[in-house]
């Protein structure tokens, strides 16, 4: 699996995590706990993909930590034989921030859902993204509350009939990718639970990214919101529904033309400053938008994210929207501590005596007087 980000001098997300020479398989990452999601749940596919993908990282298993909040997807850490914490509702990004800041030698993952990350934990999500803490956030979006048995979520389409909204939900939904880009996230991607290959590619790029990687995973809930992603999964409709984003490639989709391009293309909309869908045949090849995930300016990525259907999901850009280099909070925090620490107390040294002497100097400092 390539971890080349195509950017010069960029440190990898797992650069400081110890690696292993021992061959690993998905089984090594499978815990002894029985998986307890509903039959047909999209979470199974993601779990399988993650278990098969983790060996590709070549990291020592004990240096991987999965943190989750509350919700169906947040049971994830119990099923992985790594270090893990199933925490409290919405707070996983803050707990992961503490772990990632404390330890540079850990690969930190957050597993969350649309309710956990965008409702109760919305604040922590946006602040993790703006700080750019080195961690990968997998946001399972099934557009419904599963664990509490079927209330609408912050990504449900307006008008959704649920147990709590018999006459239809009133709230306008969040678009997680737009939200992340608005928070100036340095890595934002979207993928689909059932597309193992694409999901794995995105996971690899997300793990390799140094900073907060936000991966929205469309995930079907067969019990409370079955079929929410049918348009992008059905062989009959998916070509028209999925707008594939590949860095450096012109963005076209829909039925294949003779030259291999899709019948529909993205071009800049000079009237709005955004991006719009046109018939590929109607525009010059040079006018078709070439996807640039590495653009420092997130405006175009945001414009692309706005092409996601807000109601029934019959159109959605899929792929890596944005992947840029930006200083990470945790690296910078550790650098400040290192810069302030005397050379005599470099990490790994036994500096107990030195620290005790400095503590004595600290507490005995200021204006003192002695009584004999």
């Amino acid at each position, binding site marked *: 699996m390539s971890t080349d980000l195509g950017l010069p001098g960029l440190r990898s997300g797992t650069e400081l995590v110890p690696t292993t020479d021992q061959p690993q398989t998905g089984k090594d990452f499978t815990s002894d706990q029985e998986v307890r999601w509903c039959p047909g749940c999209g979470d199974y596919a993601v779990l399988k993909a993650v278990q098969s993908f983790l060996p590709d990282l070549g990291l020592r298993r004990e240096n991987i930590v999965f943190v989750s909040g509350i919700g169906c997807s947040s049971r994830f850490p119990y099923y992985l034989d790594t270090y*893990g914490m199933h925490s409290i509702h919405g707070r996983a990004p803050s*707990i992961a921030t503490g772990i990632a*800041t*404390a*330890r540079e030698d850990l690969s930190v993952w957050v597993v969350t859902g649309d309710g956990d990350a965008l409702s109760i934990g919305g604040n922590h999500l946006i602040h993790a993204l703006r700080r750019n803490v080195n961690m990968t956030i997998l946001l399972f979006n099934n557009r419904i509350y599963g664990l509490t048995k079927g209330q609408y979520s912050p990504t449900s389409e307006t008008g959704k009939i649920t147990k709590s909204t018999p006459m239809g939900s009133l709230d306008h939904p969040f678009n997680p990718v737009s939200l992340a880009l608005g928070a100036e996230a340095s890595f934002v991607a979207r993928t689909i639970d059932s597309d193992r290959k694409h999901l794995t590619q995105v996971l690899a790029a997300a793990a390799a990214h140094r900073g907060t990687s936000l991966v929205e995973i469309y995930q079907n809930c067969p019990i409370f919101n079955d079929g929410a992603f049918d348009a992008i999964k059905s062989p009959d409709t998916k070509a028209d529904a999925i707008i594939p984003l590949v860095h450096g490639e012109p963005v076209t989709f829909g039925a294949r033309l003779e030259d291999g391009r899709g019948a529909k293309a993205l071009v800049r909309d000079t009237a709005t400053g955004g991006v719009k869908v046109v018939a590929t045949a109607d525009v010059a090849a040079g006018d078709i938008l070439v996807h640039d995930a590495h653009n420092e300016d997130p405006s175009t990525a945001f414009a692309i994210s706005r092409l996601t259907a807000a109601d029934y999901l019959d159109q959605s850009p899929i792929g890596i929207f944005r992947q840029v280099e930006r200083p990470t909070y945790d690296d910078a925090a550790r650098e400040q*501590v290192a*810069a302030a620490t005397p050379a005599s107390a470099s990490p790994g040294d036994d500096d107990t005596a030195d620290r005790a002497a400095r503590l004595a100097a600290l507490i005995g400092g200021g204006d003192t007087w*002695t*009584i004999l």
Partner: protein
Amino acid sequence: MTQPAKQVKQLDRVIIRFAGDSGDGMQLTGDRFTQETAAFGNDLVTLPNFPAEIRAPQGTLPGVSSFQVHFADHDILTAGDTPDVLVAMNPAALRANLGDLHRGATIIVDTHDFTARNLTKAGYTENPLENDSLAEYALHTVDLTGMTVEAVKEFGLSRKDASRAKNMFALGLLSWMYGRPGESTIDFLSRKFAKVPDIRDANVAAFKAGWNFGETTEAFAVQYEVKPAVLPPGTYRNITGNLALAYGLVAGGVQSGLPVFLGTYPITPASDILHELSKHKSFGVTTFQAEDEIAGVGAAIGASYAGHLGVTSTSGPGVALKSEAIGLAVMTELPLVVIDVQRGGPSTGLPTKTEQADLLQAMFGRNGEAPVPIVAPQSPGDCFAAAVEATRIAVTYRTPVLLLSDGYLANGSEPWRVPTIDELPVIDPDFATEKNHGSGEDAEFWPYLRDEKTLARPWAIPGTPGLEHRIGGLEKGDGHGNISYDPANHDFMVRTRQAKVDRIAESIPLVEVDDPSGEAKVLVLGWGSTYGPIGAGVRRVRKAGYHVAQAHLRHLNPFPSNLGEVLEGYDKVLVPEMNLGQLSLLLRAEYLVDAVGYNHVRGLPLKATDLAHAIGELVGQAEGVDVELGVWGEPTQKEHI
């Protein structure tokens, strides 16, 4: 220069209150006077009191800020009930503080601000300096501002900038009056304003002009002397509670060998702990200013999971927000130090005022049976030892610990005997490194297999090979730690978490009772910052010839193991608190003792005089006598409190 020799009068103690507008620099003035007093060797206690608004409307009563310092030639316990000297920089400062003075107290006012407009703002219909309303006091009217402007005119400052040095003029005058050494203040001003020489020179000039004014003017005929106090041997420094607490956390990190991780959100009156710890990265301290209270504690829990000493600091409203996360730390049994610098509540309450009304929140403020050990410091300097003790319990027992400081301890100061490092406990994190269940091929790591003595679970941090495990907020199966919904297991685990906290009592000292005569029938039992007023009140009652015992609790959960026995030994137990009886409630529930409450929630420390009367009354009831406290019940210059 020959001056007429001024009379020098000996005093054993003095209480001075500096009061002015929030922008007049009264906190700085008080702090400098305190440093001079500490350097001189008096015992001292301070009480800053300021509005929550950063700049309340100028000249108004809500905008008044004050700083009280009590210093003496002997060991004292409180900042004093009633000031002997009030320095009032404007009409509002006079009006807001006059009611606290005793008859005959000295008042020094800056006449400059006694304009019709300012008098009206302060609610005066006529100028109190010009009628006889202050006849009972020793009033000195001085144009402090005018003389300051005159003294600094050579530096070419605007009139506004020049007049801002008036607090230093006032400080100079008071420093002369009480024979304070001024060198440290001149050094301080030179450092603080090193980059703005004209401001520096103006402040130094104003300070010296105030000193010289006292020395030369006939208005101040007497200079006072308060001799240095005799304190136990050692190296001392003046310290506030928040500073001592921050140092205690640094010490906890050094003594445990753990890097300290503070996850926090700014809140009055706890923010200075963040400010201070952010300066000590050289000790491996990381400070994380989170997006909210919950993220602060969340990150601290994450850091603890990763093998750091997770700490979060806040005040009452923040503890409310952190409750669920503290419950997670109870369930996951991770070390966590939670600092609550209590303030007036409920809700936003009185952000800059003190109170002790979070005890029951600390004790019970979580869902489910979620026991958390509680420790409380009893004085500003004691915040250091309390923080080290909280760290010891958190690390040794793998548990969140609540440390209950308060606004008075946080901002108040006292001379503190600096401990030597070998006086501090060594704290062993004892990380798990080996599998602990089964053997050979079948060996496993069980994260909830407990230490028999402490009932603490093993702390295995990420990066430790072979000990990969998952923890979380769901109920754990005994030993193996996997999710368990088994009824018997839940009952067992709930009782075990409680037993673990109860067992901490085996590692804490017995409560010591101060009962010099051994004949007391009344015990006064307190916790936290009421130590000073209780001690002062008890001394007054004893001076008047009565027997009374005193004890103070460092540990509120669990209680020291001899507490029940101690309580049984007295006919009556008085529990003074700055709440409506929270410790009383716990004592009644635990020991069926008929605790008598003495409760005030005025946002200010309890008054020793009032307490002395309350104690006296109870002593009278217990012994069937009429208690007459006499002069010891009233505040005078003579008494030793």
